[in-house]
């Protein structure tokens, strides 16, 4: 079955609907599974672990040193504290999927 998204944004509710349709989980289980999926990824990252989801992409952690910043309103200088941030690197497969779709759209335009 081809799932048709109803909006321009994919949300947890859409993912739960797909688990109901395709995996056969009941509505409650589907909703819990979606929550658990993101919760496990979040917990691994919080513990300092990289998350590698082959075919989709990798979530990595970067430790950034303190750097000088500025309050854009007042111009006052305030240091931006050292912090750990999450970065996402899309897999070659995902990047390829995005490019192929875009190339198709362009072709459709130029044929009109």
């Amino acid at each position, binding site marked *: 079955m081809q799932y048709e998204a109803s909006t321009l*944004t994919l949300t947890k509710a859409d993912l739960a609907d797909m*688990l109901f349709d395709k995996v056969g989980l009941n509505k409650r289980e589907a909703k819990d599974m979606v929550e658990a*999926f993101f919760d496990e990824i979040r917990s691994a990252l919080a513990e300092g672990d990289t*998350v590698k*989801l082959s075919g*989709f992409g990798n979530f990595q952690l970067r*430790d950034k040193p303190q750097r000088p910043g500025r309050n854009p309103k007042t111009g006052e200088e305030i240091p931006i504290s050292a912090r750990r*941030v999450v970065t996402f690197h899309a897999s070659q497969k995902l990047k390829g*999927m995005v490019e192929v779709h875009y190339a198709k759209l362009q072709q459709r335009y130029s044929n009109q």
Partner: protein
Amino acid sequence: MTKSELIAKLAERYPQLVAKDAELAVKTMLDAMARSLAQGQRIEIRGFGSFDLNYRPPRVGRNPKSGTKVSVPEKFVPHFKAGKELRERVDSEA
């Protein structure tokens, strides 16, 4: 953590489900997310983050080996922005 480790954790969390269901669930979700992005549909997961496409204008690049100029066409690349809860948890436990 890899995809198979994530599947194992979810299967552990839901002993009433068959292990294969956890695997199918993870694959279904990742596949749906990849297809959404590929079609230009953004993803917004409250408490986790959002995935968007960023535009890269066409540019003249260079073949790093030969040094010859090559034109790189415009394209879209996936981009993730961590949500508040993820940002705070990752930073506070660092």
